[in-house]
């Protein structure tokens, strides 16, 4: 009887979501305070993206960079954006940033502040430009592909587009050697596949949240994109490749410990489920 009540109370504690949340919080915070230094290997997928940029982009090339993620998704996508930006600048590429989302303006400025060293020595207007928020969703994406100057007359800071030296070199989709989409939404990738890749055949590169990756995988499988960086893990891998460790790498220990915790709970859940099923069968199928 005592054993039974004990097992019930233990079961109740294990069932409570508060316990899981608390353990998850501990498993995230502890490895950040005391880093474990769990090594991470660079996946073939991330290496393929790195090699694509390394082998196909020449100094002076032009890249369009769509910034489409909210502040909450910074941790998953900013490491990718910063590492890619560093790689592109190191290769001597010129970047035009733009955003089809209103929150893109905030995250771009935050990214610039966090990665001030990456932008150091790069001249605004010559090495990079930020178009700011371009309203209109897919229609705006189609319009930008046809003509940036025809879509926006000024950049995010109110400078006239035609007065920026970089914007005298590029105007339409075919002027770009690569288009990178860093987005927390599935639709954005579809916009660029439909409006930039399909009509103009411009190479696309995706940087997506882990949760989005399975949904846009068919585009990568169908070679409509040259590659994809998936979440924080890919960000950490790319940081290793470009030699600038940041938020992605700092998160990896916590990712590993929290995943282990979730795995343990999945195993416990399955053991409890099957033992209950077996005991109910033995007890006459109640």
């Amino acid at each position: 009887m005592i054993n039974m009540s004990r097992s019930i109370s233990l079961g109740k504690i294990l069932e409570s979501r508060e316990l899981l949340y608390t353990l998850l919080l501990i498993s995230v915070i502890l490895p950040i305070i005391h880093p474990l230094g769990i090594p991470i290997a660079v996946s073939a997928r991330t290496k393929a993206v790195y090699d694509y940029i390394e082998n196909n982009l020449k100094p002076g090339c032009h890249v369009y960079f769509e910034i489409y993620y909210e502040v909450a998704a910074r941790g998953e996508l900013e490491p990718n954006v910063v590492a890619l930006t560093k790689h592109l600048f190191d290769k001597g590429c010129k970047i035009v940033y733009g955003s089809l989302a209103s929150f893109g303006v905030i995250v771009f400025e935050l990214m610039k502040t966090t990665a001030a060293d990456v932008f150091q020595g790069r001249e605004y207007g010559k090495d990079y430009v930020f178009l700011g928020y371009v309203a209109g969703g897919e229609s705006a994406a189609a319009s930008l592909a046809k003509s940036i100057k025809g879509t926006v007359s000024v950049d995010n800071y109110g400078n006239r587009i035609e007065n920026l030296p970089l914007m005298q070199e590029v105007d339409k989709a075919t002027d770009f050697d690569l288009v990178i989409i860093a987005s927390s939404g599935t639709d954005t990738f579809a916009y660029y596949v439909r409006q930039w890749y399909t009509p103009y055949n411009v190479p696309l590169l995706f940087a997506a949240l882990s949760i989005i990756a399975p949904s846009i995988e068919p585009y990568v499988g169908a070679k409509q994109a040259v590659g994809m960086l998936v979440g924080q893990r890919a960000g950490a891998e790319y940081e290793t490749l470009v030699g600038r460790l940041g938020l992605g790498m700092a998160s990896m220990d916590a990712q590993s410990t929290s995943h282990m915790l979730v795995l343990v709970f999945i195993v416990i859940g399955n053991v409890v489920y099957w033992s209950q099923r077996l005991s109910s069968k033995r007890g006459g199928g109640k």
Partner: protein
Amino acid sequence: MISWDILGAWLSAAMVVWIYSFAYRDNLFYKLAEHMFVGAAAGYSIALALDSLNRVMIKPAITTPETFWTTSWHYVVPAILGVLMFAKYSRKYYWLARYAVAVNIAVGTGLALRTVPIANITRQITATIVPLWGSDPVTVLNNWLLVLITIGALTYFLFTIFPRRAEGARPSPLYYVYRTLYYIGIYGMMVGFGALFANTIMTRVGFLISIYLIYLQPQYWATIVAAILAAIAILLPLIRKK
């Protein structure tokens, strides 16, 4: 001297803690943070939309009218359509909004339709036409899985014509083929959902980690105070109930 930056950092740390406190229980501070977030987000979106309009159209039209009316005059058309959207709020002129909505839908549909058949149908079908024999066993296995699961998943969603097992009759070979593909489809999708679930955990944990690193760790005192306040707000009603 407390600067606005420090105050902002404290506030952001507290807001994060209060929003996450909902995972334990609904409480006063969660509600406060939620309402502040919704208000700030709505206000920011409106301000940014107006700023975009001002930056792209109104300001250039006033400061450099010659350039604007020769190169960017077409911005006036969407601006008028945008204004027409607000006619919805008038009982007398609400019908004017229909023109703006109609143009918006027509342009969106037209733009999407011109490439959807190629981007989302043709290219996806051709991507499943892959060699099923070759020297690399991993590639061959992947290709088989791709083809079988694609056909299986499509078979699972056949809702109209499919082979049935007649009452008392021996099932036809087509019926067995259909059942096999049907189960391949189910298990293939299950594996897909499993991958999606794992990715969901990774994303949510990633959000938590980065938010902790960016907002909470640098302002740990604000975090602790906010957590204590949230704990009091959660526990106090529970104690009172007892």
